[in-house]
């Protein structure tokens, strides 16, 4: 089986001269299709940096990043942008929806970027919103939705383009435990039914408990590794 993500010897340093912060110190990870992986660790352990490197938003100081067998280290900004649009879904901690677009339009946006015709994309998005439990809320603006509902829209947006991988940066951090549990149910179901590969960063023990794989980061290194 070809891995979706393959990291080899990833390091990331910040700063210059005498003041250098080693955010990542040689990370090797392989994520396979269908994995439901959580990445945990204390603040400053390098979780977000690692997610940024995998998504191509940041470049490693050394090491190679492969997404679906494509080395992305040397890709241009435009190529990386296209890769994220087509193959990687992103879910943020604070939802990051466009406030002036409805739930339907927010989800539709990513398909618009791909140049999909209006009718086709709206049909897909309506179905997706139904799947994430937002049927009847398609025309609501983010301010008219609860935190959990907004994160469901963000999840729908992340999976709308049928990406190979969804990267979620602490997706349950801004919602209460009940809502968090509902969001996890949803992502787990999408993982099982649609075979969407998920990689989370999280502080949430519930998320860690429900993940198939758990990567524990500490001081920029993988400190522990567990499979279900």
């Amino acid at each position: 089986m070809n891995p979706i993500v393959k990291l080899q010897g990833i390091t990331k340093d910040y700063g210059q001269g005498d003041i250098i912060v080693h955010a990542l110190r040689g990370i090797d990870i392989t994520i396979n299709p269908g994995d439901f992986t959580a990445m945990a660790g204390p603040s400053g352990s390098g979780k977000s940096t690692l997610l940024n490197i995998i998504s191509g938003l940041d470049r490693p100081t050394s090491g190679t990043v492969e997404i679906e067998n494509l080395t992305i280290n040397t890709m241009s900004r435009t190529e990386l942008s296209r890769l994220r649009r087509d193959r990687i879904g992103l879910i943020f901690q604070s939802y990051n929806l466009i406030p002036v677009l409805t739930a339907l339009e927010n989800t539709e946006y990513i398909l618009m970027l791909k140049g999909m015709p209006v009718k086709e994309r709206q049909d897909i998005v309506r179905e997706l919103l139904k799947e994430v439990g937002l049927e009847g809320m398609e025309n609501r603006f983010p301010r008219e939705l609860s935190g959990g509902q907004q994160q469901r829209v963000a999840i729908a947006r992340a999976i709308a383009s049928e990406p190979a991988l969804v990267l979620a940066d602490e997706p349950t951090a801004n919602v209460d435990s009940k809502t968090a549990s509902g969001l996890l149910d949803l992502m787990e179901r999408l993982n099982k039914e649609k075979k969407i590969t998920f990689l989370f960063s999280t502080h949430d023990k519930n998320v860690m408990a429900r993940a198939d794989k758990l990567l524990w980061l500490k001081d920029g290194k993988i400190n522990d590794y567990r499979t279900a």
Partner: protein
Amino acid sequence: MLIRLAWRSIWRNRRRTIITVTSIGFGLAIAIFFICLAEGVYAQLVRDGVRLQSGHITLEHPEYRNAPAIDLFLDRPDSLRAEINTFSDVALTKLVILGQGVAKTGTGSVGVAVMGVEPSVEVLLSPIIKTIISGRYLVDSDNSKIVIGSKLAKRLHLKEGKKLVLTTNDITGALTEDLCRVAGIFETGSEEIDGYIVHAPIRFLRALYNMPEGSATQLGIVLSAPESQNKIKKRVEALIINKHITAYPWQEILPELASYIKLDRGSNLIFQAILIFLILFTIFNTIFMSVLERNREFAMLLAIGTHPALLKYQLLLESFFIGLIGCCAGLIFGGTASYALQAKGFDLANLYTAEGASISGVVLSSVIHARVTPMILLGTSGIVLAATLLLSMVSMKRIDTIQITDTLR
């Protein structure tokens, strides 16, 4: 979808957008109004100037302009005149004799400019007709009747019906004089015109100057559409190619007026440029603030795979909408005010001195009218809109500097 997004985005900060749109509309309305007003005054000055003189295009003996002498006349230009009268955009043509002389009465003598006119043509266009304050203007059957200005009448103690002797040199250089009677007195408010110009029937002056029947020093062409001046001049020049006649545009006949308009238009342009610059500054501020405020949103859009060019296009659309709404408001307010001033005019009489206002010898009517043209309305708005879009490009550069990971942290 992008259009919808851009449209909704400009209304996120409703108050700021309304202030920006209002300032664009207000500034543009002022710019349009003052341009139309200035163009109206210029058009009025040109119209009165050319009607007082010899039209938008003047045909003369080639040497007359350098050394105006009565013997440099056009000999029987009737067939040429008839042909020009058939041109579209030509309102009418007029034959004129311009000469110098001395007006004498028992109380003194004054040097005057004598203008031989065709009364039936002159009544149709001369601004002097409306300024008769005593007696009447000339009619075709008048022979030795003249019309003089109020200042000249005062100097020579003349009234309607009184006589004066007009002395001059004829085309052979011989001294000649004739007795004239004052048919009417006009008062334009211009010292130059009221104290110097004498209108007399052209037949009377031909006889006085010993000129051939049908001759004149000028053949003037008055246009119904002044903008076709160059076109008509070219057509006329084709007719006079071998006739020892030169065609001049009014700008060469009334150079001071042409220079005044050019200078005034230039200074107006600076004023308008400053005004538009101030408007643009407001627009720039709005667009730039709007980009700064949405740094996080733009970072997220870039993160999920939006090409920077698409975000720039969205910003361009937002600027276009703000500019378009502002320009529409400016067009409506500025256009309406200008149309009202064009249709009804505004009487500045109270602001005038007793002498009235004259520019380069052309009296400015106290009632001013604006001149509204699609070019002014659309041109000014177009400049503001185009400048808005250009300015938005400065803000767009901000997109390229967004550090996605730092902004989303």
